């Protein structure tokens, strides 16, 4: 199984991730004659948003957006010139396009690509509050994954809390399969509504998107799902069995609580920057979305020639925008490899650019509305921030007092971010805590220096690389 030797393969373009951006990029590049290798950890295309879209047992009930994804996935699935590698992990990726892949059976492939499109999408923003590590607390996104792939229906007593459109979507999807949530406890700060109102023009352009959201909320009201807004000071408490039993929160100047056996939490999504960070690419702090994004050109081009980012990994824009960004990056990659000239590239970019602008118009409104408040991202001392190494917010603040000025010193000092999740679950929170403690912008505090392997691999798997010619 692991005693083999790594294989070396080559291609024109490697696409990492087969969500909307990756699928659209791969299809567009293959149409232009590029040999494409598209890689995904899942066993089917679709990414998170269109997860299992070609085979989901509940696809019909997940709505027309999911149906749009099915058409894209079908085109991707049928396109010639794409080698589709599912169940495959990218564990290393170098600045010159050499990619270490691990297949399902632990076989190692060294893929040498002339261009790379990173389409690794988004991660749910970590949402640390007292009790968030209790059994029975999970993210709304993971609950949705269960819904989409296995139609596993969570037990009775489901409560959703946090902020962002996904909360309503998941609640509605639960209704669809006959589960009525016990409550939706919304944390969106009241001031956000006023801030968002300033972006009404963009909101008007995105009326269709907003209408969908309003319809969801209306459905939940009709179904008499209790909805609370402006909640702060969340804490989850365990019952006698050690699992979550109730959610406590402040609202309207009073402490309240609601019983639950499954607590779904969500605080929006943020770009997955693991690969772009590990390549040392420049990143900017997006104050509107409270997250990092890689610095990109208009084609999704990065500071490294031949390496592009498309989709939510470059900044949250949603599935439809991601698709267009995938097409633009594919055009730029094809131009770079000499398949089309610049004029042709620009001509073909016209339609995706207009579509992209249309899909992004609503973002300033949504960003302002769902920007998490300090309460949601800078937890109290006793809250565990790094779940792998069980480091609390208080320990991080003590490190700052001891002279640790940024996340990397904190990491070296108390191991936050050193566990198997490689900082995915705590990175943003640690930067926010340090920035708040030092009274300086997150942009100046910085982020973990991320190192490859991007995902854990075994010693036996890595050893396969030894014999490969350099």
């Amino acid at each position, binding site marked *: 199984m692991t005693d083999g030797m790594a294989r070396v393969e080559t291609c024109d373009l490697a696409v990492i991730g087969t969500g909307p951006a990756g699928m659209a990029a791969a299809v567009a590049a293959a149409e232009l004659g590029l040999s494409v290798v598209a890689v995904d950890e899942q066993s089917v295309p679709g990414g998170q948003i269109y997860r299992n879209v070609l085979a989901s047992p509940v696809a019909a009930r997940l709505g027309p957006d999911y149906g749009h994804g099915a058409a894209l996935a079908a085109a991707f699935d049928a396109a010639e010139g794409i080698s589709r590698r599912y169940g495959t992990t990218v564990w290393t990726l170098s600045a010159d396009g050499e990619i*270490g892949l691990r297949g399902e059976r632990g076989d190692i492939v060294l893929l040498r690509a002339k261009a790379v499109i990173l389409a690794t999408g988004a991660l749910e923003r970590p949402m640390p509050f007292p009790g968030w590590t209790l059994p029975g607390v999970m993210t709304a996104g993971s609950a949705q994954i269960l819904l989409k792939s296995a139609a596993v229906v969570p037990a009775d007593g489901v409560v959703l809390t946090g902020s962002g459109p996904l909360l309503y979507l998941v609640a509605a999807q639960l209704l669809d399969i006959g589960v009525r949530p016990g409550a939706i406890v919304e944390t969106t700060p009241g001031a956000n509504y006023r801030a968002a109102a300033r972006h009404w023009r963009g909101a008007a352009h995105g009326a269709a998107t907003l209408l969908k959201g309003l319809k969801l909320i209306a459905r939940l009201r009709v179904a008499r799902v209790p909805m609370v807004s402006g909640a702060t000071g969340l804490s989850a408490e365990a019952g006698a069995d050690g699992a979550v039993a109730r959610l406590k929160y402040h609202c309207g100047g009073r402490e309240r609580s609601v019983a639950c056996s499954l607590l779904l939490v969500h605080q929006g999504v943020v770009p997955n920057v693991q690969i772009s960070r590990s390549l040392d690419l420049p990143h900017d702090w997006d104050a509107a979305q409270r997250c990092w994004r890689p610095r990109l050109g208009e084609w999704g081009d990065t500071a490294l020639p031949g390496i592009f980012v498309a989709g939510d990994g470059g900044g949250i824009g949603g599935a439809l925008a991601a698709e267009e960004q995938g097409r633009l990056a594919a055009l730029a990659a094809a131009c770079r490899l000499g398949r089309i000239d610049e004029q042709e590239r620009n001509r073909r970019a016209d339609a995706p650019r207009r579509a992209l602008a249309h899909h992004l118009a609503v973002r300033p409104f949504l960003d302002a509305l769902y920007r998490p408040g300090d309460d949601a991202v800078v937890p109290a001392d006793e809250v565990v921030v790094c779940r792998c190494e069980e480091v609390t917010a208080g320990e991080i603040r003590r490190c700052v007092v001891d002279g640790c000025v940024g996340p990397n010193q904190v990491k070296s000092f108390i191991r936050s971010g*050193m566990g198997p999740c490689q900082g995915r679950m705590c990175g943003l929170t640690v930067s926010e805590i340090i920035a708040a403690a030092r009274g300086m912008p997150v942009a100046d505090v910085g982020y973990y220096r991320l190192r*490859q392997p991007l995902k854990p691999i075994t010693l036996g798997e890595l050893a396969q690389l030894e014999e490969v010619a350099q």
Partner: protein
Amino acid sequence: MSTPFPASRRPDAIVVGGGLHGSSTAFHLAARHGLKALLLEQTYPGRHASGVNAGGVRTLGRILPEIPLSLASMEIWHRLPELIGDDCGFVHSAQVKVAESEADMETLRARDVELRALGYTHEKLLDAETLRELLPAVSRHVVGGAVAENDGCAIPFRAVTGFRRAAERLGAEVRSNWRVERIERTGEMWRVSGPAGTAEAPLLAICAGAWGDKISAQVGEPVPLNPEAPMLLITERITPFLAPVVGTTSRRLSFKQYPNGTVLIGGGYRGIADRDSERTILKFSGLATNVRVVCELFPLMKTVRIVRAWSGIEGVMPDAIPVLGPSLKAPDLVYGFGYSSHGFQMGPIGGRIVADLVATGKTNLPIEAFSIGRFA
């Protein structure tokens, strides 16, 4: 111990480099000589070799001239809490070097004869059976080994921080993001300058690791230092199976399990070091060789997952021993750098020697072999 100096007191000595040696120097200047140090660090203390090394605290297998210093340093490691009020994560555990063949065993026997002739007893030979008692999981092909029972390991960044904070408590001033680009002697003073400004003091210590040669060259003492990036990796937590730190005799390996169950693997396989940007690039082909050796020695490791890999920048001298001692060309200038990727254990004593030399011009340990004069 002395009391902190008034904040207004001007520094007696500038220490260039905020790694373990620089921090230890600043601490010993205050603790032993009542001198106030201004410690200047180009990024933040412990950013490079000092903070990200394998954490081995090893007297085993030292190059002969280093042995007296290494043994003296070991004594300090064992009493850090009373000295600096922090144990730096130091855990006492044996260091073992395994012999994988009769030829390896012969090498270890020759070393043993040599050490005993010089009167050293800190290393002992192990037969196959005793070795297996120490390392039950080791592969059957191992025929014996050598052990230093008084050794151990520590947590690198904590060690740097422990010495830095102890120095600060005694009145040392530490400046981060203060890169020293130029040094000049003006009258009785050393003046150092860089993008952050200028600073002056009568005494100057250079503990700048992989950047030390850039300073020594300015007083006419260039040295052939090579910046290198030895790579390390660490695994997920697994059931404890290994107490000693393990090395090999004819291949390269450093292998240990921390109390939390993670296993650290090194061996000096090189990534790419870029000294100017202060960055390193990993080369997984080298790490592949590294883990192949591990899998051969400890077959149970094959299915264990690697969680992280990293590297730091080390200053390596052609003869693999540091530049440690006074400048031969300029007064009141002392060097302690270029520890060639085995300087962590030497940090406590290296800083004490530099502090003693800076303050008194003398040390009671033999340092002739490390003189910068060997490159003149």
